[in-house]
């Protein structure tokens, strides 16, 4: 949350009135006035999403269309590959992929989703980075693409085991979609973009809807007794349990995809020896990390006790040493595990599973263990 935000300058999403009418506790987040929780509270909202379904307003995120000037979507894909280390060309029509914008040092400018909509690419980027991302795209891809900010659309995430049945009532194609399928679909008769994805570790959907219809669609989904509105508090605890990175915390301009343990997101075709190896900002450093390893790594951390270890806590190799070996980048309480969970960066030599470490919390050294992520098994429909 940004301290410099003052209430008057905050932007509102098309669902602001809905949040207020549902009793949302509004807080500043990435320049927007957003609900951190509703009357049910973070714990219930979190558990409800894992057992039923939760509706999240993620309209603060940026939605962009990348239209190829040639008319061929593969030209837009090739152009975007100049900015990301992912294989964009291989994203089939109707499919989506996780990606990152890299900088010249191999760090990450933002992480994003890229979908192939057949004749253009559809991008979803983080709220705090969206102006910068758009400028970055315009500066680098304007020769090949028309870049269109879709500011007149809201974005609703519907997550959890009941998401499919809730959406099926409004969108007949929803049940046949697989994880990371994405494309234009009618939802309740509205022209939406639907992807089977999300950021909770649960099966679910993200639905891009024209801003003027967003509240009506959200209310229709909330009329289903299985669906509760979920605030940013539970969104954070859900993504943390799922082991997913939060940009600006777990990944930033100083972390490479290898350090961030995101190797899985960089396809072989873009790595050394691949058909289109390199050719993105910071490729030398990132490919060297792939080839030779990096000196530090993002890992999952579990504690023995119940005291949460939060962002910023310093990590130590033993109970007495004075030199920290790393830092926690996200940490809190995992309601589904009923235990604290955290992630942070440690030297690669201390990143093996079950390595014992210590975190300093209020002057005390708490024992931690390097643990596998996701902390809670994901339920994506593959």
């Amino acid at each position, binding site marked *: 949350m940004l301290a410099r935000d003052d209430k008057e300058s905050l932007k509102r999403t098309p669902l602001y009135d809905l949040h207020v009418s549902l009793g949302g506790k509004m807080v500043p987040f990435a320049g927007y006035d957003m609900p*951190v*929780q509703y009357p049910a*509270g*973070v*714990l*219930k909202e*979190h558990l409800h999403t894992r057992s039923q379904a939760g509706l999240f307003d993620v309209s603060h995120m940026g939605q962009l269309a990348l239209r190829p000037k040639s008319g061929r979507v593969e030209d837009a894909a090739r152009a975007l590959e100049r900015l990301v280390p992912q294989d964009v060309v291989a994203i089939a029509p109707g499919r989506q992929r996780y990606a990152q914008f890299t900088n010249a040092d191999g760090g990450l400018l933002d992480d994003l989703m890229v979908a192939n909509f057949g004749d253009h690419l559809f991008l979803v980027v983080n709220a705090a980075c969206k102006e910068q991302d758009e400028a970055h795209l315009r500066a680098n891809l304007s020769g090949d693409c028309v870049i269109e900010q879709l500011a007149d659309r809201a974005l609703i995430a519907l997550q959890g085991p009941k998401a499919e049945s809730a959406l099926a009532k409004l969108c007949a194609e929803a049940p046949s979609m697989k994880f990371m399928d994405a494309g234009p679909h009618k939802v309740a008769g509205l022209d939406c973009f639907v992807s089977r994805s999300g950021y909770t570790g649960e099966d679910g959907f993200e639905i891009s809807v024209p801003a003027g219809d967003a509240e009506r669609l959200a209310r229709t989904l909330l009329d289903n007794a299985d669906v509760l509105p979920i605030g940013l*508090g*539970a969104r954070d*605890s859900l993504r943390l349990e799922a082991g997913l990175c939060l940009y600006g915390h777990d990944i930033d301009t100083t972390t490479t995809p290898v350090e961030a343990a995101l190797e899985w997101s960089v396809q072989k075709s873009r790595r050394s020896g691949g058909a289109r190896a390199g050719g993105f900002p910071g490729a030398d450093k990132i490919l060297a990390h792939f080839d030779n390893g990096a000196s530090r790594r993002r890992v999952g951390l579990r504690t023995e006790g*119940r*005291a*949460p270890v*939060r962002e910023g806590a310093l990590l130590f190799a033993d109970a007495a040493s004075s030199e920290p070996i790393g830092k926690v980048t996200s940490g*809190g*309480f995992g*309601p589904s595990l009923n235990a*604290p969970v955290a992630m942070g960066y440690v030297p690669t030599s201390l990143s093996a599973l079950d390595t014992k470490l210590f975190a300093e919390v*209020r002057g005390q050294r708490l024992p931690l263990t390097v643990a596998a992520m996701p902390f809670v098994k994901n339920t994506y429909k593959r």
Partner: protein
Amino acid sequence: MTTTLYTSDHEWLAIDGDVATVGITDYAQSQLGDVVFVELPKIGRTLKKTEAAAVVESVKAASDVYAPISGEVLETNAELAGEPALINSDAQGKAWFFKIRIADKSELGGLMDEAAYKAHTA
């Protein structure tokens, strides 16, 4: 005969003779949200007024609980340490934090009665 007083930091004190039972108010718990962890002071520790005495952690964040008065910690609530959610269900009853021997009764003078606290949180 006990008297209950309040601090502007949302702690309550039930005064019985020279012993005060200390907790956080219902208003405080409603602001914190779901409490998942509480750290209580060690028995025998001598607290100074306004010193951090305990920690309450919700899913979202950690908050300090300050000693509302100076004195020695006589007893802590073992049930609360095992079941922090008591703070949400019974903040001003079962979820007391600790009992403290009042070192200086004059410190009570700066605290609020119920009516004043209600006005403070209104």
